[in-house]
């Protein structure tokens, strides 16, 4: 089983990112769970969304405490909360930022770090307002590349199914992030 935690701020689309990934993976006949942090969300406040993926039916229904991978939609969250809490050693932490993985030395010791400039990709494809672009689909493209959890083709199908508007632009943003994510090849 693979468990993923998405960090964002209320309104950034963390829940949609988690669900788009789930829809994509489910289209391959795998089992998924996608859920928000149980409770109420406030715009701008730190929020969480979770995805479980398995080849067999998923019975565990508690929250996720030890994710295999973490996706961070907003780089300012790194100062505000411990985004690596419970993260498995060697797991991916994917950050939306203009910085490079080497700039996050504090994470490099225990985890694999990847970065992608999802803000500017989202702005380029006019996803959301310029002041607060919607980065969730772009960052999923980057996640597909580094984690191999889902192929880009399958992911794009999931994205097109869930985004309310601009399905093509969202798919292009994901593809561009897939091709431009910064990480160390293994």
């Amino acid at each position, binding site marked *: 089983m693979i468990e993923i935690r998405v960090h964002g701020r209320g309104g950034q689309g963390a829940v949609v990112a988690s*669900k788009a990934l789930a829809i994509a993976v489910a289209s391959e006949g795998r*089992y*998924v*769970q*996608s*859920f928000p942090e149980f*409770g109420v969300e406030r715009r701008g406040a730190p929020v969480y969304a979770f995805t479980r993926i398995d080849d067999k039916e998923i019975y565990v*229904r*508690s*929250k996720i405490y030890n994710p295999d991978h973490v996706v961070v939609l907003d780089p300012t969250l790194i100062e505000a909360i411990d985004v690596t809490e419970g993260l498995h050693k060697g797991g991916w932490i994917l950050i939306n930022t203009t910085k490079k993985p080497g700039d996050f030395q504090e994470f490099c010791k225990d985890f694999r770090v990847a970065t992608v400039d999802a803000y500017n990709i989202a702005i380029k494809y006019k996803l959301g307002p310029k002041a607060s672009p919607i980065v969730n689909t772009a960052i999923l493209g980057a996640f597909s590349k580094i984690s191999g959890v889902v192929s880009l083709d399958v992911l794009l199908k999931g994205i097109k199914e869930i985004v309310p508007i601009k399905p093509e632009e969202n798919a292009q943003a994901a593809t561009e992030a897939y091709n431009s994510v910064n990480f160390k090849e293994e």
Partner: protein
Amino acid sequence: MKQVIMGNHALSFGAMISRVQVIAAYPITPQTQVVELLSELCADKRLDAEFIKVESEHSAMAACCGASAVGARTFTATSAQGLALMHEMIHWAVGGRLPVVLGNINRAMGPPWTIWTDQNDSLSQRDTGCLQFYAQSNQEVLDTVVQAFKVSEQILLPSMVILDAFALSHTSEVVDVPDQKLVDEYLPPFNPRYILDPKEPHTFGGLTGPDGYYELRYKIEEAIQDSKRLINETGKEFGELFGREYGLVEKYKLDDAEIVLIASSTIASTARVAIDELQEEGKKVGLLRVRVFRPFPSEEIRELLVNRKKVAVIDRNISFGHGGIFAQEIKSALYNCKDKPPIWGYITGIGGRDVTVEHIKEIVNDTIKSEKPEQDILWKGVKL
């Protein structure tokens, strides 16, 4: 067709494929998406039903009762305080013998203000005569709505389809929404023998003295007892048509178990993983999930628990002054049996406190270690 949907939408789609004709509902967290989707389905004509906007849950159930009395298939959904407000009209649906199906998202009762899950809202409706199904997955939520109509309309009593707040209501997972033709084959149109009809006037629920009321209550008990057979039969028939079989209870790795863990709802789902791990450690433990709480599956409980060494019951609810409600019911079902096992009644997960695999394993291991239950109520995880 397989879709990734939240539990709330599984309720809405369950109502849609059951071809409900009248919906009256009032939104309440964490049930809101049920009502949102149903109103959308009605607005864009994917569902040919009358959507009645009401000012309260009491009115929602009242409208459903009226519509059911004229022969319409009716549905509503609510949660916690909303269900409590509906309480009087649930008695009405039962006494009026109206097979309304009600979706309830298990949410703890306030105050203090809360939106997270436990079972006290639905269990407070225990003695109304409304059937109660507790689901462990979104697929089961959808499937149970269809089965609930089939059972309710044969015995003329309402049913409640119950799911945990957030753990199901807001969790999206793969749900197979079955082919409408197949559902139509399984669930024929609602065709009651007596309806409210101005052309042929009847009175429903009028003043009835001690000479008649008693017998009408006897008839309700007779009908709900009969529903035990029906629930198992319709669940089996559902399995033949759709590949997913259901019954009053579900057994998991129970055959050689000396210790039986009993749970319901999503805790029972997580408990499967705990049972797998405990068996790998060589422990002789199995799981019994109570899917239907009313009617209570006393016969199954007796058959499956007599001669076991120990029984541990997990209750995500509390009857103040007595204890966990499932544990009470199980004890009462076993009381007259010879060779009944001792029962450990654990309370946990109240108000949506998370229940993990480790947590459940701890409960089983505590039961294995202790010789007898030290108290009627064994609280797990209280931080004082």
